[in-house]
């Protein structure tokens, strides 16, 4: 493992914002939520990141999506003593991408398909099962899941748990008893619609979206009444403005996002009806602005020559009013996406000094390799800096918000375009980063891969994939396939980074003990010094880790760290699907990038919970 430091490179960019930003903002107390945090650091808005009560009620920890725990009992001086407190086998051996939840003495876990939900009693030794719930989803849904049968977690609110099933149902369960309260069928597997994302509950509404961008589905985000499961509103990502919920409230920052019915006119006739733009990623919420933020995924098919036009509203970020679903602004990160670059990664809400002014921003390590900083009130791009190897684009024009593409790397029919960086899953896929207000750093688990691409004519057959591209991936410059980068959003550069042999597909967790936790696909669960990147502790789990670690305070007042082990997802398909890596295009090119993974890990499904040894 190598640790690289980028302090020198950071200076190149830091000139514009030398000196504490608070000196240049009128009244720092208005803008700086936490007095103990100096104003020259990024901070999440307090309304979206309230003080930690020791629970973990949503996968992102809070509405600002910081994945930061204020628990500090486990720290750099004692983490070497960290040991297993208890384990739990989920009985499922597909990719475990979910974050466990903890609410007052009970832990909740949702598994990959068949999406079983378990409640573990943390007040008893060994955390026995309190109840379990089996939603019995349709087995055929497995055939229309693009990237393993994953589920990214449940959400808790007002005594209820909400989660999605692979066959496109949203289900509410009473958290105390496990009794089903309601279930709503939201999609049709015969059109390729599945659901894998973790819901977000905002003001009594459960926000959920569909998956299936590789099957020619039409993407949407919908809000369900948390009490009844009835649909309150539904916003499509393509089609007429009335379907997209674009109306009088809509005020995009850039003119190119402003015209009538762009969701139809930026496509060949009717292509928008099977155009993708699914909403399977992360949602954040700013209570003060009363806006939710969500991404839209890739347009379909992958072959870009079959869909000339900007393909609105795919590959971008929406801000919407959670009460009505009405769009406030939109920014298309990848107009006319060339590479399957879903724009659905996590959206961190941070108040950040930019050019001497404290701005309310949303920060997103994007699939195309740039860390985007947008004004979250207006949708203006404030900066976009590369955090990984990129040769398919040449930066973002901060005046127009336009991404400049490199023509030589654009897919063309009848031609193999070689060595495109980043790949289809991007510099970073769904697996979320974490932000520590103590260090001011964003911890980005990501990849270093490149690819060869050949477009082919995609053929739409409902219920089968609609792709039109053959891809093989391989290690990027330097040969390491993964990297954990600590990103300084003020200096717009890496503070440090750790190279990993395998691509990173797990989430990150930052704690007030100044520790950073993440897992690798061969099963190492690691704790790093959040300030330096020095590795302080590691544990080998039974199967590769692609889950989202969490920290919580147990009923006994002690700090615990929990993570699900169980390799899989698109990146681990070669293991869970027992694929044959002699075909370099298997798993849409992933098999070639991780052909060695079958020798390094096996399938599994196990919860690991760690704590310091109990003093007697």
């Amino acid at each position: 493992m190598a640790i690289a430091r980028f302090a020198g490179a950071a200076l190149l960019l830091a000139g514009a914002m030398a000196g504490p930003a608070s000196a240049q903002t009128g009244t720092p107390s208005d803008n700086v939520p936490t007095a103990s945090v100096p104003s020259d650091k990024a901070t999440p808005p307090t309304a979206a990141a309230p003080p930690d009560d020791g629970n973990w009620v949503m996968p992102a920890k809070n509405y600002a999506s910081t994945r930061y725990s204020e628990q500090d009992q486990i720290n750099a001086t004692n983490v070497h003593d960290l040991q297993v407190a208890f384990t739990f086998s989920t009985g499922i051996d597909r990719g475990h991408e979910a974050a466990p939840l903890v609410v007052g003495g009970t832990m909740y876990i949702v598994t990959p398909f068949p999406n079983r939900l378990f409640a573990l009693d943390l007040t008893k030794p060994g955390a026995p099962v309190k109840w379990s719930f089996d939603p019995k989803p349709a087995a055929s849904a497995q055939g229309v899941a693009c990237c393993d049968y994953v589920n990214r977690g449940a959400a808790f609110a007002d005594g209820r748990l909400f989660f999605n099933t692979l066959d496109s149902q949203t289900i509410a369960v009473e958290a105390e008893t496990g009794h089903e309260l309601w279930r709503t069928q939201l999609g049709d597997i015969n059109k390729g619609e599945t659901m894998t994302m973790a819901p977000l509950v905002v003001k009594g509404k459960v926000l959920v979206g569909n998956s299936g961008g590789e099957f020619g589905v039409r993407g949407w985000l919908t809000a369900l009444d948390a009490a009844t499961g009835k649909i309150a509103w539904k916003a499509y990502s393509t089609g007429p403005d009335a379907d997209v919920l674009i109306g009088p409230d809509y005020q995009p920052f850039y003119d190119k996002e402003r015209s009538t019915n762009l969701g139809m006119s930026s496509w060949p006739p009717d292509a928008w009806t099977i155009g993708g733009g699914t909403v399977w990623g992360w949602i954040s919420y700013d209570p003060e602005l009363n806006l939710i933020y969500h991404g839209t995924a890739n347009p379909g098919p992958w072959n870009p020559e079959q869909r000339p036009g900007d393909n609105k509203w795919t590959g971008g970020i929406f801000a919407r009013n959670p009460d009505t679903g009405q769009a406030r602004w939109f920014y298309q990160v990848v107009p006319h996406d060339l590479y399957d670059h879903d724009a659905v990664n996590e959206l961190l809400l941070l108040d950040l000094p930019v050019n001497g002014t404290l701005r309310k921003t949303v920060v997103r390590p994007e699939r195309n390799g740039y860390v985007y900083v947008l004004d979250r009130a207006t949708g203006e791009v404030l900066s976009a800096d590369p955090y990984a190897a990129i040769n398919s684009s040449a930066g973002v024009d901060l005046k127009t918000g336009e991404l400049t593409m490199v023509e030589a790397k654009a897919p063309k029919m009848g031609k193999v375009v070689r060595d495109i960086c980043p790949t289809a899953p991007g510099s970073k896929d769904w697996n979320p980063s974490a932000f520590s207000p103590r260090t001011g750093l964003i911890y980005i688990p990501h990849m270093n891969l490149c690819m060869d691409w050949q477009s082919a004519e995609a053929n739409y057959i409902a219920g089968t994939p609609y792709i039109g591209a053959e891809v093989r991936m391989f290690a990027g410059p330097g040969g390491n396939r993964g990297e954990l980068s600590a990103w300084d959003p003020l200096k717009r550069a890496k503070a440090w980074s750790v190279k990993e042999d395998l691509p990173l597909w797990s989430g990150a967790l930052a704690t007030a003990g100044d520790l950073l936790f993440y897992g690798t696909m061969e099963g190492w669960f690691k704790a790093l010094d959040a300030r330096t990147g020095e590795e302080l502790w590691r544990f080998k789990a039974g199967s590769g880790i692609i889950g989202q670690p969490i920290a919580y305070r147990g009923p006994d007042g002690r700090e615990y760290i929990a993570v699900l082990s169980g390799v899989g997802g698109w990146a681990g398909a070669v293991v869970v699907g027992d694929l044959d890596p002699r075909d370099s295009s298997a798993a849409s090119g992933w098999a070639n990038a991780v052909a060695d993974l079958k020798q390094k890990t096996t399938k599994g499904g196990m919860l690991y919970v760690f704590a310091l040894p109990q003093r007697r």
Partner: protein
Amino acid sequence: MSSPFHSAVRTALLAIPLAGLGLAACDREDREPRGAPVGDSGPAAITQGSLYAGEPSPPRPSHREYENNAYHLSQGKQLYTSFNCNTCHANGGGGIGPALMDDKWIYGGTLDNIYATIVQGRPNGMPSFRNKIPEQQVWQLAAYVRSLSGQTPKAASPSRNDTLNAKPAEQRMPKEEPKGSSPGGPNLEGRQ
């Protein structure tokens, strides 16, 4: 008071549904004493496991002409892309669906098994293509699927790829030998 004419009409109207009932009643009593010969055709001809009640039934007449013929295999290769087989199974290495170029067959590796899997679908995600692909094209597809693991004669297997060349062409693939875990293998009797 009803006239004789009216009552005659009424009788006629009543007679029509009664006649229908009478016909249905005859069908109800219809029976086919023997049925189709056991194991000769249809789904009954296909086994998905390698365990039999009693002695294994003799194999049905196969469609070996599809496996030994370069034209059929090359048609199969083209259809494999046209019907989006490749979008789930890649070039045989698999993805959403299982690999087809290795020595494992979940639902059987005979030409009949593969034909049945394509037409019937399978419960864990393989879609049914019933009535979507002409029968001869299904046989061509099934034969091509067998060529992915080198089960077809090299003289007949496709010798080149039109795309990324993600793996060697079928003609150059080593022949995989399915093990006992693969139901319905080609040599159930006399396997050594």
